[in-house]
């Protein structure tokens, strides 16, 4: 067993790898499918877990969207989903509403778009695209998945306890989250949330360290940093952000656990609740907000950068053109990564933080718009004079560019503290971050699944269903989130169980109905994807080795899941990944393994 997993990392390990491939047939079921240390299997495990989590989180959103559009109406669906405790007569319970909003956010941000997106594509693509036999540590990688799995199970288990799951919003600001008297969700549910997230962070760190080490140390011969596909750069920067910022969330969580269970006062002071004054004096909830957003803001880039990396690769491949401004793309990702650590205060303009400090964060935050704009323009220029091949992955990539721009420009508004005063915590914010981060990242994830499905499951997904899935999703997604801007302009706060207690919001009912109808349609559109996904795993057409005529190394591996990826010696890289439609070449792509011709220049110089 142990032998079967030891990956020989030397360049001339061809015959070893061959042996492994041979041995693989004798692996037990458990070693092959469950406690696997193979990066491809771990990638599949992350993806399948994320799909399950995404379905749950999406169903939650449908439930609370129904409540928001038709408050007081009775829905058999809600009763069927939540039972009599929380959906009596088909009406959603107000505490459960907050719980659903909280867990929807938590699952989507952390479990789908962090664990799912990075976990799937970092594991799948790093060894493939840098030319390595596996991740630096297969064992840590396996642990990373199983911590992720465990944290998912705990998060889901919290849905089934008497008091209900955590419900203080995904940002879990204390004292609301610290005091069991404040809401039922701050009892056992919050404890489970905190445990789950701690395990999640362990998973994220184990994975992140592995990603960084593998990209830096295990690149094959000739794979210079400046020859790496942008997916690798994106994942490298993402992993560095995660390793630096997630531990801060652990500290925030540990202090919160102390306040909850050990009677400390890190975040608590001068509180009177449940008919009595608490002893806690001297703490400040603002401390928690600083710690939380020190992770929380890099976190949104942890979510979006891999998606941007994936689309960079897909847009170049399917435009049949080099990515425009390869170095500018790397530079802008590095700039975004650096800046993401010094902007967290823009979530806190109105928390009582010193307004001068707010000014500094306005400045740093708006700077991020510059590298982001560079990226958007570079994508569009890559399309210019291209020969665009509309695979489903390409459609989703273009969808990402659109949503990244559409959601990005409202970020310029929100980053301006003066303008933030009146739209802070309203639906304008909900619209902004769902479009710029939610849609963009999920589009990137879909693009990645369609594009690398042949490497994940050796088969193809159905193209026509992919088209149908993209167009319905794209239309519905904007239908859900664009109208929300107008709720924000009318001053509607987020996380309201119903707006009907304020006559000033009575004229907004039609907006809420449109949003919910689109949300239900969008959810149904995902059934198309789910069907296509699971059907194609088993029945999809067998994929050829390089279905998209792509340059990167993963398409030089045989269409079989073998340990060590390449049966012979590791490939040697001679050029960057973006020689598409190069003048003088006969085909419109030149794989990275093809040596430079006499007098030919690398990196797009010609």
């Amino acid at each position, binding site marked *: 067993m142990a032998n079967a997993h030891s990956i020989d990392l030397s360049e001339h390990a061809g015959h070893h790898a061959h042996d492994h491939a041979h041995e693989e047939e004798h692996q037990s079921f458990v070693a092959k499918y469950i406690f696997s240390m193979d990066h491809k299997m771990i990638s599949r495990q992350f993806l399948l877990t994320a799909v399950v989590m995404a379905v749950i989180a999406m169903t939650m959103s449908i439930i609370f969207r129904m409540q928001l559009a038709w408050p007081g109406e009775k829905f058999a669906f809600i009763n069927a989903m939540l039972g009599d405790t929380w959906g009596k007569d088909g009406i959603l319970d*107000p505490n459960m509403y907050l719980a659903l909003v909280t867990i929807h956010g938590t699952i989507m941000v952390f479990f789908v778009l962090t664990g799912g997106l990075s976990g799937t594509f970092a594991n799948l693509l790093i060894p493939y695209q840098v030319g390595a036999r596996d991740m630096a540590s297969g064992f840590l990688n396996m642990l990373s998945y199983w911590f992720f799995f465990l944290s998912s199970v705990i998060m889901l288990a919290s849905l089934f306890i008497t008091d209900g799951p955590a419900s203080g919003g995904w940002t879990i600001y204390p004292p609301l989250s610290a005091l069991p008297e*404040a809401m039922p969700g701050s009892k056992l549910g919050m404890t489970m949330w905190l445990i789950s997230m701690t395990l999640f962070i362990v998973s994220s760190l184990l994975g992140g360290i592995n990603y960084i080490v593998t990209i830096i140390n295990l690149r094959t011969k000739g794979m210079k940093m400046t020859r790496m596909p942008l997916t690798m750069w994106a994942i490298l920067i993402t992993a560095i952000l995660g390793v630096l910022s997630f531990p801060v969330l652990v500290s925030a969580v540990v202090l919160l656990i102390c306040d909850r269970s050990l009677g400390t006062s890190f975040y608590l002071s001068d509180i*009177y609740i449940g008919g009595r*004054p608490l002893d806690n004096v001297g703490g400040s909830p603002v401390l928690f907000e600083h710690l939380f957003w020190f992770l929380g803001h890099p976190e949104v880039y942890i979510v979006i950068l891999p998606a941007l990396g994936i689309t960079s690769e897909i847009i170049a491949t399917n435009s049949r*053109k080099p990515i425009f401004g390869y170095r500018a793309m790397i530079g802008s990702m590095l700039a975004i990564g650096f800046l993401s650590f010094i902007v967290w205060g823009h979530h806190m303009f109105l928390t*009582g933080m010193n307004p001068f400090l707010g000014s500094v964060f306005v400045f740093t935050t708006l700077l991020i718009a510059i590298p982001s704009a560079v990226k958007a323009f570079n994508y569009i220029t890559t399309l210019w*004079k291209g020969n665009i091949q509309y695979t489903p992955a390409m459609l989703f990539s273009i969808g990402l560019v659109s949503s990244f*721009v559409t959601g990005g420009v409202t970020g310029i508004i929100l980053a301006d503290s003066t303008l933030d005063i009146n739209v802070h915590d309203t639906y304008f914010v909900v619209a902004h971050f769902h479009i710029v981060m939610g849609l963009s990242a999920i589009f990137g994830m879909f693009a990645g699944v369609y594009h690398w499905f042949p490497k994940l499951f050796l088969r193809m997904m159905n193209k026509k269903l992919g088209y149908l899935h993209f167009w319905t999703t794209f239309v519905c997604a*904007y239908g859900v989130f664009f109208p929300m801007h107008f709720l924000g302009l009318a001053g509607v706060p987020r996380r309201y169980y119903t707006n009907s207690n304020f006559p000033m919001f009575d004229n907004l009912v039609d907006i809420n109905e449109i949003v919910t109808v689109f949300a239900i349609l969008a959810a149904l559109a995902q059934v198309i994807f789910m069907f296509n996904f699971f059907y194609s795993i088993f029945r999809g057409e067998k994929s050829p080795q390089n279905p998209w005529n792509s340059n990167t190394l993963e398409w030089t591996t045989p269409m079989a899941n073998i340990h060590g990826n390449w049966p012979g010696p590791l490939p040697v890289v001679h050029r960057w990944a973006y020689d598409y439609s190069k003048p003088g070449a006969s085909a419109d792509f030149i794989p990275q393994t093809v040596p430079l011709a006499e007098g030919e220049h690398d990196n797009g110089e010609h």
Partner: protein
Amino acid sequence: MKLLILIGLVLLIIAVHQLMRVVELSRQFKNTKEWNVSESDNTFNGKLMLVFGILFLGFFFWQINRWSDNSLPGAASVHGLKVDQLWDYNMYLVSIIFVLVNGVLFYFAYKYSGKNDTKATFLAHDNRLEMAWTVAPAIVLAGIIIFGLKYWNEITERSTDSNKITVELYAKQFDWTARYAGNDKILGSTDYRQINGQNIVGIDTLDATSFDDIIVRNEFHIPVNKEIEFKMRSRDVIHSAFMPHFRAQMNCVPGMVTEFRFTPNKTTAEMRKDPYVIQLMKGINDIRAKNNKEPVEFDYILLCNKICGASHYNMQMTIIVESEKDYNAWIAKQKVVKTLASK
């Protein structure tokens, strides 16, 4: 019901499965492959990109036309007018960027959809172009930053107005209480340990400056054209005092006192005569009539805008802005803390 849904789902799966069989068979027949993207696929999706782009931008303008009349009325405070102005400039700017960039994106997606006989142009980078779109956003953002920070500093700087009125907004699960400083213009100090059924905001009963403080619930009054300095406190969890008509918001944080100040410049009565507000309220009351609810008049309102528990959605207090004379008459009628305490 549940059974019906289940049966429906099963039937759906079977139907799609049969459909896939047909697709698979026809694929073998026609010898097309999933990975082959034909020119007609490209043309089809390219055209859809163009159609989508047009519809999407059309949807954008349709929404503005239909829903912008539901937006909050123009600001009813001095600084709010500046916020609105800055908002408009920024919003026009980003809307133009949004329309242009999306327009170009979808146009290119249509224009350069793949054809069998063309080859893409090999263009790896262009330093001048990249410099241009690094510098251009930088200049625009410099403008945005300068104006934004100028107003932010004006709004948040400490009050120097000796005539200002200080009002404390006190939040708890799930209602608001307002406290006025009284004749001595000093809000009495507080001690959360002294909170009880009578002393809801936790006034320190040993502090004489608190005896003339005035505590009101459900609605509070402020005079027009006078600077109001709000001090926010919370009893239990974080709340946020949101007064959207005045472009004012600040969190209420247990353990600290936060501040926000503004000068209201329109009385409630004036707002009710504003043509935009009349139109807005007509729309609201038409809908209320349809649902058999009694009509309402415009009121300024204080809402909670930070998740605070089950009834977060129903934490409100009415704000009445009136002439200084009316305000003085109103405040004179309110009971001071001493009389409350002596009960």
